[in-house]
């Protein structure tokens, strides 16, 4: 084969190979690491998502936070002003977690309909509302 052609063929094969690997990784990564986002209302009406890793978000309902005095267990309600969702978490809450503020929790829906959170995300700005929450609230308004 002509050296220049051979050079091009090899280059092409390498690029093709690298891209295939990347696509494989991307597809695999995306299929197992996507977290769908739900509002309390959506969670109330669906039963098939129990046990899967998901995200839920809303505003922390006023006076709903119950903290244990002897352990890191904590529970609170999040709301989209239509339905509420009981969230249970064990761990230190982030600095900006507070009542009447937006929050996103990651975890799964337990059999009793409460949400077992493995992670609580609150962002560092008192005016900040996760876009997911803002969108969810906006949807309810309209």
């Amino acid at each position, binding site marked *: 084969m002509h*050296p*220049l052609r051979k*050079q091009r063929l*090899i*280059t092409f094969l*390498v*690029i093709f190979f*690298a*891209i295939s*690997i*990347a696509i494989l*990784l*991307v597809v*695999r*990564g*995306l299929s*197992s*690491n*996507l*977290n*769908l*986002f739900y509002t309390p209302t959506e969670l109330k009406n669906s039963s098939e998502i129990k046990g899967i890793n998901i*995200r839920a978000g809303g505003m922390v309902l006023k006076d709903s936070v119950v*903290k*244990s*005095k*002897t*352990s*890191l267990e904590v529970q609170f309600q999040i709301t989209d002003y239509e339905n509420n969702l009981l969230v249970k978490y064990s*761990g*230190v*809450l982030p*600095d*900006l977690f*507070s009542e009447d503020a937006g929050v996103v929790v990651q975890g799964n829906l337990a059999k009793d309909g409460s949400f077992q959170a493995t992670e609580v995300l609150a*962002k*560092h*700005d*008192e005016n900040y509302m*996760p*876009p*997911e929450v803002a*969108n969810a609230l906006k*949807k309810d308004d309209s």
Partner: protein
Amino acid sequence: MIVEVGFLFLISAMVISFMGSLVPLVWSFNKETNLTSLISPIIVLVFLFTLSSLSILIYSFSIDDFSVKYVAQNSNINLPIYYKLSATWGAHEGSLLLWIFLLCSWSLFYILKEKDLSKDITGSILLQIIFFFIAFTVFTSNPFERLLPVVPQNGVDLNPLLQDFAFTIHPPILYLGYAGLAIPFAMSVSSLLQNSVNQDWARRTRPWVLMATGFLTLGITIGSWWAYYELGWGGWWFWDPVENAAFVPWLMAVALIHSLIVSEKRGHFKNWSVLLSILAFSMSLLGTFLVRSGILTSVHAFALDPERGVFLLGIFTYFVIGSLIIFSFKNTNKIPETGYTTTSKEFGFLLNNIFLVILGIAIMFGTLFPLIYEAIFDGKQISVGRPYYDTLIIPFAIGLAFLQVVALFFSWGKTENLSILKALAIYSFLFFIVLVSISYLVFEELYFSSILSLVLFTIILLGNLLSFKQKERSKYLAQIYTKTGSTLAHIGTAFFVLGVGFVSSYSFEREIILSKGQVYELAGNNFKFERIIKESQPNYSADKATFIVENENNSFTLNTEKRFYPSSNQVMSEAGIRPTLIKDYYVTLGEELDTDIWSFRIQIKTLVRWIWFGALLVTIGTFISSRRNFRNRDE
């Protein structure tokens, strides 16, 4: 009054930068009127105007002029003076002005550094970028907007997270990196327009890319270090969209550094280098767009404003589409006669570029995927988790590390003798066995990531040292100097990888409850909760807990705080960190459960400092290399 002057300076800069950007257009219509001699004075003027404008904004912060809306929203009377000054880039409007000023500084440096400017229209391309960004600031994000007639008595305050030393330097340095990528972009576009994409162009461009990459590396490193101690989670990288938006241009810039070597020395990959410089700058613009438009969930997103998003998307599209159109019509079709084989430096660099660019694209894809998904599935929202990026990056990191080492010993065209690789493999294997044994003795456990990082560390370190030693025998002193920078940078990646692997293998994290006086044991260290006191500062009040940590070798105290900032109504914890060469001891205060009973997060991080040490080596190596390349080409 002076505030209006600042705005006026900005508008003047906008007008003259627009005029300066018309030079190539005039030239293309009338070959007789070469106005390139006007570009340099215009750049100097634009630089002075934006400097004045930025200075006036900083001045407004220093005198607490709360009649300026931007100052009122981001500063406070009780803020210490140095934070008042750095509050200038604490939010969207000011950081944009800073970005513009830094781009003007780069442009000024460009016209000072480049000798032959008689036919160079690069400055004009830069002025065009400057023009669009000033227009964006003036029309959508004016930092000089007044809050009249009611002037507030006090400002809202700077976000407590940003009241920190690293924050005062992180944005300017990162922006220097971002904006610096405009130089190779402008050089590529102007060379395309003048049909002068050649080996000389590659030689002239490379030191600029190196310098910008140096700043980008340093900026990202400081950001990572800041997140580590300030956010209180003890993580050093979160795959946050904005981190990705800085990391992807970095990958592209590194690819460009390497492809330009081939373009310069062998004349290959010239089109590819041009394309990469466009890609690197586009990614840096895309980063700015993602941060500023607030379309992605991120700790950094501060402006949820669709109008700004549309404007920025317009600028992005203009430059990307525009440069790609120029590229498709003006690219050079000349391919050098000399071929290369699979055992050549050219081929090594080709693989390096393919890996880096595909990795960059895949990361960008993950970052943007939530947007794509939302568009396809009618508003259904998702987030892409951290494991996606982790699984993605590991194979690429392995590939790049091995490639780096092998390609070091390749020659241009075809490598005749590869026996040195065999020697390297033997040395590496022995050294690796020693390191693994030490690690096992010290940590009593081995993990996949610690072993992998040791393998990569060994081959990169030994490969580079060996290759440097080979060059040292060379007669040409200049060659040794040129090699110093790249060797340092490459060795930096070795330390970086080792830090990453060990931190993920040998770290401990516990969330616990302690009452005063209680002791908690973690991995052979006794953490004693000694006392907790209340403290008051002008701009915040705090609960301050003191720990005494004891282990076999020594004992020390750790202080961690939970601060409340009344002016912005925010709570923030300050982690207590004891840094050592091998381990970081890290304590964060949680909340009060009962009288004198608090929750804490206690962490031990092994070799975490090596991550930033490695990144600093990369930075230093890149700067040395940049300086050397400037010298070599200008001599």
